[in-house]
């Protein structure tokens, strides 16, 4: 989230799209409810089906899965044509004024620079014009036909209301209601928030879906302001933390790119290639140097850089790609930690088969998962004869499987980082059950054992391990205080930890500082010896301070836990004030110019003493090389979001002749379902009562009681057509597999009127597997191995299927 949970209370209008916030993030409604009660805020929900969120929304508008860009594009068109955008904000804080080079072009769904063979773009074609002094060429009137605002106007003029509704299936009157209500937040003193989740991201256009929200928010002046922002509601209590800590293959902790072998052969080249010329990332070498120092404290970063594993240039290592490799037998062993891919992974049949190609598998979880028991007879059962991936019976599976029981979050201490980037320490409440161990203890012992096995080796290729610094105390469990101090960073004295640094502004690129993750630097700045005082993630002071009687507090609660970066609760908050530094709305003032310096109810995301009327005084996005918010930017599929259909779609693209996102990799062309056999749109989702792949909830009787079976929601019209009764068993079928589920026939799903024809959509819960008190079949046996063009996040949310009585 650019903002945070509490801040939702400050909004005038919440657009919940691609998220079922009421069900999957119940706490969000505590704050939205307050916004409604205290400010008369409106809640809008856009979703293929009427959910518990819709039930609590003021406006509900249906849209067909996979059409967000059309939906948002139409809103942008309306806002641009009718000048409903926040003009001053757009002029100063976005790149609307930037002039684009004439090599930019767009024709029938394809931007300039496309190579159809490689399905790749040359993004250099979309560059900005530069002045001779190296600054960006701008037109502050935003009238130049090649300025970003005009290019956007032209790009989105095709997204007229009629056409958008033909694509999305949204009734026109509902669409207009949404547009009117949300466009109203373009007024300077109004603020709207967009709340999204996996309904947005799990598409072949996932990244561009999010970008379309970000652009809309910039147009309406809603970023960096209390009650605004683009707010990713993270699906797990610590998924923000795990992303910050490099859960994904392409980043190191703190969002530094992982090195590629040819592109970044050595330390100097990495820094040269990766460090931009402007914006705060000019400090990147300091962050990398400090990170390397933390891994290999006795070595010079220029040397220890070589110890980092390097990716094969351009190779995809995301979940789908990894399982494709496993399926081909390239990957031999796997440690799977708190993950259950044969329930949660896309194309679960294929992933189950891939597991059987492993020589060994170590599964670490609270309970035996379906994945740790992928070799069992239970895992073999299927409702029909369909077996696209030749799943093997137990006697033919040779994989050695080890299971390590992990303890639950209440049985260990440590921190989690919530959606709002708040890092909160949690104390241990109970001792672990049986032999289960904290994750940290498992990784600690594993690391020590590996070091022991390599001890004494003088081989140079073993140096990454032999020279690795691993000093976390003497117990079986590593000392969390030492880890927290390392995360914050310190000065290295004689190859050993010295005094703590105050925050990342004190990090150096010469190997004199170490820091585990620069964005978290500042969480443990002091050295009094009392962790309750020094470790700021442990704070629980529940006051909302006010620094100026004219500006009421905005719910920052700055002494409750700690948030990255530098305890700044709303990022880009320079935008909360006018170019001159006066809050757009004094009742929701975040920071303001107090004559000599910036003051505020939050930590300024800006130079503390940078005069708003002086040089750089309006460069509100200090992290960007452009120093402004980028409506026009660079993604793998283009500089502006354009609507493409899902990989499996019931219709041709009505906006251009490219059906699929031109930059997407297709892994299994032969598995693309078509409407003759699979005329119904399928999607997957969660419910309040279960958690992810269900391992922590299907094992709890009280939660199994709440949602005892896997069900598929469908309209009364479809049920009538297929002669399906509410509560009866049905088979859902795709090119990948079949599953059985119970029918939930409901008025809350309606057929979509798409380009003159009715199209049905169904939704299946994906929480189920063969274990637990509430067993069911994994919905992901249906979903495809295809993903987003930038992140390869799987397209769980829109595919084609058929449904029949069991």
């Amino acid at each position, binding site marked *: 989230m650019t903002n945070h949970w509490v801040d939702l209370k400050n909004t005038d209008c919440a657009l919940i799209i691609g998220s079922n916030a*009421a*069900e999957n993030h*119940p*706490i969000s*409604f*505590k704050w939205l*409810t*307050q916004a*409604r*009660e205290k400010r*008369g805020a409106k809640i809008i929900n856009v979703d293929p089906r*009427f959910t*518990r*969120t*819709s*039930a*609590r929304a*003021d406006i*509900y508008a249906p849209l067909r899965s996979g059409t967000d860009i059309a939906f948002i594009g139409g809103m942008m068109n309306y806002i641009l044509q009718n000048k409903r955008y926040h003009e001053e904000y757009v002029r100063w804080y976005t790149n609307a004024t930037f002039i684009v080079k004439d090599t930019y072009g767009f024709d029938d769904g394809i931007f300039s620079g496309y190579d159809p063979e490689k399905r790749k773009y040359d993004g250099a074609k979309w560059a900005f014009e530069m002045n001779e002094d190296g600054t960006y060429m701008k037109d502050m009137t935003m009238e130049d036909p090649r300025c970003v605002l005009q290019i956007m106007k032209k790009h989105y003029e095709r997204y007229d209301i009629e056409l958008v509704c033909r694509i999305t299936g949204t009734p026109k009157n509902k669409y207009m209601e949404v547009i009117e209500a949300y466009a109203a937040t373009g007024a300077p003193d109004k603020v709207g928030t967009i709340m999204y989740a996996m309904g947005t991201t799990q598409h072949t256009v996932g990244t561009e879906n999010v970008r379309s929200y970000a652009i809309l928010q910039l147009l309406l002046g809603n970023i960096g302001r209390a009650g605004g922002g683009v707010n990713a509601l993270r699906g797990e209590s610590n998924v923000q933390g795990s992303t910050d800590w490099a859960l994904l293959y392409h980043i190191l902790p703190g969002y530094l790119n992982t090195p590629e072998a040819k592109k970044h052969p050595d330390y100097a080249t990495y820094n040269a290639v990766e460090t931009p010329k402007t914006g705060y990332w000019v400090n990147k070498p300091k962050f990398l140097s400090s990170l390397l120092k933390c891994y290999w404290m006795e070595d010079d970063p220029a040397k220890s850089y070589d110890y980092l594993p390097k990716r094969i240039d351009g190779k995809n290592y995301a979940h789908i790609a990894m399982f494709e490799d496993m399926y081909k037998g390239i990957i031999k062993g796997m440690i799977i930690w708190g993950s259950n891919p044969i329930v949660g992974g896309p194309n679960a049949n294929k992933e189950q088969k891939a597991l059987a190609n492993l020589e060994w598998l170590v599964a670490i979880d609270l309970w035996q998962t379906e994945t740790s028991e992928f070799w069992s007879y239970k895992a073999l059962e299927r409702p029909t004869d369909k077996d696209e991936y030749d799943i093997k019976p137990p006697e033919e599976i040779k994989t050695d499987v080890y299971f390590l029981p992990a303890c639950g979050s209440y049985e260990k201490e440590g921190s989690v980082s919530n959606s709002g980037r708040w890092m909160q320490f949690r104390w241990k409440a109970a001792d672990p059950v049986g032999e289960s161990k904290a994750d940290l203890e498992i990784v600690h012992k594993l690391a020590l054992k590996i070091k022991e096995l390599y001890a004494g080796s003088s081989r140079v290729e073993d140096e990454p391990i032999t020279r690795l610094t691993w000093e976390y105390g003497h117990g079986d469990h590593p000392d969390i205080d030492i880890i927290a101090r390392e995360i914050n960073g310190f000065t290295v004295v004689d190859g050993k930890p010295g005094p703590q640094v105050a925050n990342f502004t004190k990090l150096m690129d010469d190997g004199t500082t170490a820091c585990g993750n620069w964005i978290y630097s500042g969480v443990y700045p002091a050295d009094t010896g009392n962790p309750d005082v020094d470790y700021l993630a442990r704070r629980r002071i529940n006051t909302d301070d006010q620094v100026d009687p004219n500006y009421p507090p905005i719910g920052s609660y700055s002494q409750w836990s700690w948030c990255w970066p530098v305890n700044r609760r709303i990022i880009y908050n320079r935008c909360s004030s006018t170019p001159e530094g006066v809050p757009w709305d004094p009742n929701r003032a975040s920071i303001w110019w107090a004559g000599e310096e910036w003051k505020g109810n939050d930590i300024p995301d800006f130079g503390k003493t940078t005069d708003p009327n002086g040089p750089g005084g309006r460069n509100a996005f200090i992290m960007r090389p452009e120093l402004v918010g980028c409506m026009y930017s660079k993604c793998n599929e283009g500089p502006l979001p354009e609507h493409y259909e899902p990989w499996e779609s019931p219709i041709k693209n009505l906006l251009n002749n490219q059906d699929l996102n031109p930059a997407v990799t297709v892994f299994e062309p032969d598995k693309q379902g078509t409407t003759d056999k699979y005329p119904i749109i399928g999607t997957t989702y969660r*419910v*309040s*009562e279960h958690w992810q792949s269900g391992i922590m909830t299907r094992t709890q*009787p*009280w*939660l*199994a*009681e*709440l*949602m*005892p*079976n896997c*069900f598929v929601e469908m309209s009364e019209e479809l049920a009538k057509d297929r002669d399906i009764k*509410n*509560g009866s068993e049905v088979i859902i079928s795709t090119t990948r597999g079949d599953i059985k589920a*119970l*029918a*939930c*026939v*409901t*008025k*809350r799903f309606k057929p979509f009127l798409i380009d003159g024809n009715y199209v049905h959509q169904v939704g299946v819960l994906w929480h189920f597997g063969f274990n637990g*008190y*509430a067993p069911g079949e994994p919905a992901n046996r249906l979903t495809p191995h295809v993903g987003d063009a930038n992140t390869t996040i799987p397209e769980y949310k829109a595919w084609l299927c058929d449904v029949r009585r069991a």
Partner: protein
Amino acid sequence: MARMTNLYDVSKCTACRGCQVACKDWNQLPAVIEPFTGNYQTHESTNGDTYTIVKFMEGEDPVDGIYWNFLKYQCMHCSDPACMSVCPQGAYSKTSWGATFHDPDKCIGCQYCTYACPFEIPKYRKREDKITKCTLCVDRVEEGLTPACARTCPTGALTFGNRDELLQVAEERVKFLRANGFPRATIYGKLELGGLNKLYVLTDTPDKFELPIDPKVPGQITFWQDWIQPYFGWLIPVALAGSAFSFVTTRILANKNGDHTEGGHE
């Protein structure tokens, strides 16, 4: 102690059912897992091991379109409870602050209260031959805590406090809702049956939440209270012997649920 009550504001409830689980947790009630029947609702009604449920009611209004109403359902803690009036053993009592308390030690499992209650709340727990229902968390409230369900509610839909104060809050909420898209919003429990010790803010008329618009104690109950109960002392041995009396009274009092005496759900 002043009258204390739970206020439940449906306009804030997201049907997360945290309350339902919190109730099971506090009262250590076993799960009663019943297969999914096509509605999110776990059980048709409360049962011997489930003191509260969230009901899900969907429908379509010609003007307003689809609605999906949620209602947390449990004992209403009536001011003048029918369950208490009919109980031959005096197992029911009212606490000074308004909870209708059922004492399992006194309960003989005769189930007359199940017929008398206008909300069909008391439920038979077969394995113990006792009646059970929501206690309004008497054991928490009297220790200065709020009921487990209210303590858990993430959205603020459930609050606990002084009835007079909460009644004011409810009046304000109804005013707000009527002005903000819910013209039929209303309070439930203020006047019904002389005032319930459980207040609801509803976004629509009570029937849209499967609540009786004008709840009444069944006529036979009055008859029972005035004519039969006084003589119950000497009738009891006869009743327990499964005599003609028991046969007659169950016939008189039987309501629509044929399997009522089975207790169900175990």
